[in-house]
Each structure stands twice: as C-alpha cells, then as structure tokens.
C-alpha cells in the first residue's frame, strides 16, 4: 500500500517536472579523484563535481598533501586547475615534486602577509581579494579544480565575511564540472553536495640515529562530513571537530 502511494507520488512529481527532487532518480554525482586512495575510498570516488567542498585542519595535518594530490590528479589528466593563495604560501618546487604539472596551474598570489605581524585590516583585505579572485575564476569556468587557500587566516577574519559568500560560490560552481575546494583551519562553508574533510595528523620521523633522522611525513586521521552523514578515516579519534561541526 505504502509502495503504491510512493509510486503515485513519484509519478505526480514527474508530471510536474519535479522528478529531480527524487533522490533515487537523480543522476549519480560525477567525481574527481583526490589522488589519495584512502580518502577517495571514503568519498566514494573523489570530490563531487559542481560542489563546494572543504579541507579543514590544523597545520601539519596533511592538508597540503590532499590539495597537491588533487591538483596532480587533475593536471595529469590534462585538465587545468586554479589555486588562489590568499597569503602566498604555495611552494612550486614542492608541488612539482608531488606530481603537479605546473604549466596547467593558474596561481593567484595574495599578499605575502605574516598573520602575527600584520596591521589591522590587511588580512581582511587579503581574504576579500582571495574570495573575489576565486569567484571570478569560478565564473570564467573551464577549470577542473579551483582551490581557495585560506589557511592560517584567523577565524575572526573569515567569520567577518557575510555568510551568503559561500552560498554564492556554491551556486556558481553548481552547474559546472568543477571542484571548488576551500582550505582553512576551521570549517567555513560547503555546499549541500560538498563534503568537509577534517584532518588531523602527527609527524612521523624516520631514523634511529641522530644523524640519519628525517621527517617521513604525517600519520593522518580524518573525518568526512557530508549532508548524508559522517564517516571516519583510519585511526580517527573523536576530537574537537565533532563538536565544532
């Protein structure tokens, strides 16, 4: 009886051209692999195209690795990507070593501001400039990934932006085959189809001897938040993010 009612409701929605409202009938979201296999596994194949997603975490948690892996994945497929670097902290040599084809990257460099020593208003100006640049790149279209790097920017500066800002960015990216990525220290905003990847990590050192020791990388843990729920990555711990999100 219930199924018949559901069917009739679906038929009614379709006759009114509202069929896309039915989740079962909506086309499966197209995705762009992050290049980090474990995260791809959790995301169901990668970032959703046409969505605003975010990568969140403290420094030394693996955020840059996730960003560079995504850029490398896209550029190796022959696509072009854009990186809006609000504080001008991108290192091209590191990116090239991570497999990013640099000639397919549009790099927008913000002001090289030291957050701790910046005069009042300078960081706010840098944030506005970065958001406007990201908006213009998204509107131009044709980029596989548009990353807006707002890391190391104090939360108060991001909170000073109107909340409609992120909604507008999400609307711009929605009809496009583009992944819009926000990178920040704390959750900022994502679209309904986007995800928040919350990262934590600890440094891993190799070498027993003092002379041979070197930084091997980070052992990350992550929480993926989306509109449909929360999935956790390997070795994840319940952290402050659980409350923050």
């Amino acid at each position, binding site marked *: 009886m219930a199924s018949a009612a559901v069917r009739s409701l679906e038929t009614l929605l379709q006759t009114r051209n509202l069929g896309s409202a039915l989740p079962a009938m909506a086309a499966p979201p197209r995705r762009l692999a992050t290049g980090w296999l474990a995260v791809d596994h959790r995301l169901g194949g990668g970032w959703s195209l046409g969505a605003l997603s975010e990568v969140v975490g403290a420094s030394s948690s693996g955020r840059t*690795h996730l960003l560079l892996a995504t850029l490398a994945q896209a550029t190796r497929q022959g696509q*072009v990507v854009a990186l809006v670097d609000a504080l001008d902290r991108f290192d091209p040599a590191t990116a090239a070593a991570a497999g990013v084809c640099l000639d397919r990257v549009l790099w*927008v460099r913000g002001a090289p501001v030291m957050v701790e020593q910046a005069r009042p208003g300078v960081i706010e100006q840098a944030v506005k*400039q970065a958001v406007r640049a990201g908006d213009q790149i998204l509107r*131009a279209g044709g980029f596989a990934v548009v990353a807006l790097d707002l890391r190391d920017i104090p939360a108060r500066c991001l909170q000073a932006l109107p909340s409609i800002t992120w909604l507008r960015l999400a609307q711009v990216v929605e009809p496009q085959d583009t992944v819009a990525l926000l990178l920040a220290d704390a959750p900022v905003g994502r679209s309904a189809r986007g995800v928040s990847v919350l990262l934590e*990590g600890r440094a891993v*050192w190799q070498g027993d001897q003092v002379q041979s020791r070197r*930084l091997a990388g980070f052992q990350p843990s992550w929480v993926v938040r989306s509109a449909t729920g929360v999935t956790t990555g390997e070795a994840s711990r319940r952290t402050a993010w659980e409350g923050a999100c």
Partner: protein
Amino acid sequence: MLIACLVYDAADPPAPHGAIEQVARAVSPRVTPCGRAAVVCDVSGLGRVCGPPAVVAREVLAQAAAAGLPVRLALAGTMTTAWVLAHARAGLTLGAVGTDAAMLAPLPLTHLLAITELDRHVAGVRRHTEAAVAIRTAADHRPVRRSSKSGGGSPGTSTPGDASFRSYRDRLATLERWGIDTCGALAALSRADVRARLGASGVRLHQAACGEDVVPLVPIAQAREFVDRIELEWPIEGLEPLSFVLARQCDRLARHLEQADRGAVAIRTTLTLTTRAHHVRTLALPAPIRDAKVLRTLILLDLESHPPDAGIDVVDLQLDVVPGRIVQGSLLARATPSPERVSTLLARLTALCGEGRVGSPVVLDTHDGRACGLAPFLPPSSGSTVTEPILAAEAREAMQSAAMTGFSTVTEPILAAEAGPGERAPVPAHLRRWRRPRPVQVEVARGRPAQVAWFTPHDRAMAVRACAGPWRTSGAWWDTDAAATWDRDEWDVELADGLVYRLARHRGTGAWEAEGVFD
C-alpha cells in the same frame, strides 16, 4: 611572362623602408620584395593597359621618379635574367620574352654572383609560405610575434662569408681559369658536364647564365595594418565614456580581422591627452583573439589599472596580428578554458591582485629552495594530455632499483600515491613557505635546536620534540650582490604543539628564522 626587377641605385642614403615595394605595387599586384633595395614583380598583363614593354618601363620609372628614388630597371622573360641585368647595368635594360640567354651572353661571369641574394630571398619566401601554412594547421596555437625577418630568409646583401656566395665565387674562379669569362660561354657548355665537374653550384650558375629560374615568382601580399584612430570633438574624462568609443573601434577592427582571417596577439593603445602627452599601453595576449567584446574588455581592464592622467583627445588602437586559429576540439577530452576567456580572466585578476601576482608557477634553476617564479598562464589546448602516471612508473622503476641495490631513491609523494586504502603509510610532508621568513630565537643544546621562541609577545617558547638536520646549503657566493648569496643550515623541527617547521640558521650571522611550516 614579363618580369621587372627594380633596384635602388644609390649607396647613400639607404633605401627608405618599403619605398621600392610601393613603386612596384603601384604597377603590379604580383610583387616579391627582396629586401629594402630590390623588388621583383610580374608585369605580364600590363601590355593590354599600357602598351609595349618600353611604355611599361617608362611608367615604372615615372613612379620611381615621383617617389624620388634613383633606380635601375630591367625587364626580361625570367626573374633571374631581370635580376642579373638590373644589378649589372645602370638605368633601364629592356629585354624580350625568349631572349634571356642572349641578353645575358655578353655579361662577365662575375655578375652571376648577384643570384646569391635572389636565391636567398626566394628560399625565404618559400619558408615563409610553409611557415604560414604550418601555423594555420597547427592544433595548438600560441601567440607568434610577427617578425620583420620572415622565416629565416632575412633580406640583406650577400657577403663573402656566405656559404653559397663562397661556393659560387670558387666555381666562377674555376671557370675563369678554364677560359670561360662570359655568361654566353658558360651557357654554351653542356649542363651534364658542368654538373660532373662543378656540382650543384655549377649547375645553378649554368641555369643563371641561360636565364632560367629555379622556382617561379611567388607574390607576397602586402602586409596589412590593423589600426584605428578616433579624434574626439570633446575630451573624455573617465573610462566609462571611453568604453563606448573603444566599442566602436574594436567592432571595426574585429570586422577587419575577420575578413583577413587574422587574430590579434598584441594591442597597443595610445591615448593622446589634453596635456599633449601620450599614454601608451601594450597588452600581449596569450592567444590570437578577434572578438570585439573581449578586446574592448581587455583594454578597459588594463586602463583601469593604469588610468591616464588627463582627459583624452585621441584614441589610437594598433593590433599585432597572426593568422587566425583553427581549433579542432576533441569529443572525448574535457574542454579547457578558451583563450578569449583566459585573457579576460587574467586581465581581471591582474586588475584585482596587481601585476606579477597571476600566472603559472615556475621552479627556477637554482638550489635556493626559496626561489620561485611566475610565467604567463597559457593553458594547453583541450585534448592534450600529460603522459599518465609518470610518477607511478618512476616509482615502480625506482622500487625495483631499490630492491636490487638496497638504496631507495623513491620520493615520498610517490610512495604515498602507491599506498592502498588499507595501508598505513604516512603521507608526505609538504612545505608551506613563508615568503617573509619569521625571525626566531633558538636555544641550541648539543649542537641541535632544543627550544624555539618567537619574537611575538603572545607566543611562548616551546621545546623541540624532534628535529632533523642540519642540511647545509649555499650558493651565489660568486655574485657581487651580497643580498643574493646564501649560506645556511636548514633544520626540520617538531615543536611541543605538534607542528613541524623548517628553520634556517644563517651561517654568516648566526641568526635563525622560520621559513615555513610542513603540512
């Protein structure tokens, strides 16, 4: 066919640029300019308009006289004959079709050296034509600066250093030793015998002595200039009213570009101001463009960043052009942003962020890790893909090598990319570099950093949990600029808060600074 060769007949002053060509174009549409001082043109059809060759020659000389140019003129049945005669004899030399060998016969052999320059120009024209075809058919169109020297066949005079000139001179010396001192005597020889004794250069000389062309005359179309000028009745203040003026000009220029199948690769905007000063801006475009709206937007965005100081009286636009683009998109590859869109986007971003802040990152050829550069962003055409996983292939190769030798040369990103979802491999640490390094105070114990204190009041000193280093790096010590040299020890340091920094100690001063954080 009747060919005319017009040569500037004065050593000083040099021929004005394009003047001889203008004289030739006044009488014939089929013209091949050969440098500034000579031109070859086809005057075959003029017999019906002007009369016999003598009348045609008088017309040409009258045009040259009107332009104030002292010239030599030769009319003959072939390009080679006309060229040699014009260079050998002053004034007017008239020949008839079919009498080329007879016309050249009394000339001394040394006059044949003049064909060196003709051959070079002809080869240059051929290369220019082939290059134009190549540009039109290329899939990936990059802005190509138009050069006054086309295709390597640069006009100029033959010098004794030229290989072909030396070759001809040697062959002619040989012929003179054999007692052959006129073109007629050379033409009387068997070409097969000349080839057997003097090779290809000897054959070319024999052809010239007979008045034969190697290739037919290839006319070069007159270079068309894409300029537009508007003199305003009233001065314009501000960019908004200027946009309407620019719209008209760009529409006209775009129409001309469309007709000529050309695209603009550079826009030169010259604004004559009410102060009689000229405000000149030049925009280089990443790809040939002929969309009027895009051109106007680019000019306006550039002028927004660099506005004129006073009201505008005259607006001049000049375009550098290349052949139009032929784009063959791929059905299967993802479309990349179109060049028009990229140009507009870059102009907008440059207006927003400033000059030198937008482009493609470049790794500079230096061991100084802090150095980086920015190149113009020129997205490759859609469909061009990067060779798939170069890194993965390199990784496998390196892993095999490591297994055999016991030494691993695999970089960390590659290892992480190869790790599966169930593996617990650490992800590589990437440096986020601070463009302005932050001075820090470091307490050293047993030769290694033990405590780091920032020079800010709210940051307290933190103990070092782990560190690696030092990695000594130095360079540019040969440079006279002391600021360019570097000599420092680098450390990777994990502090008590779990963050990992890159610290550097300048060996000269002993000062420490934090260069960035690993993420």
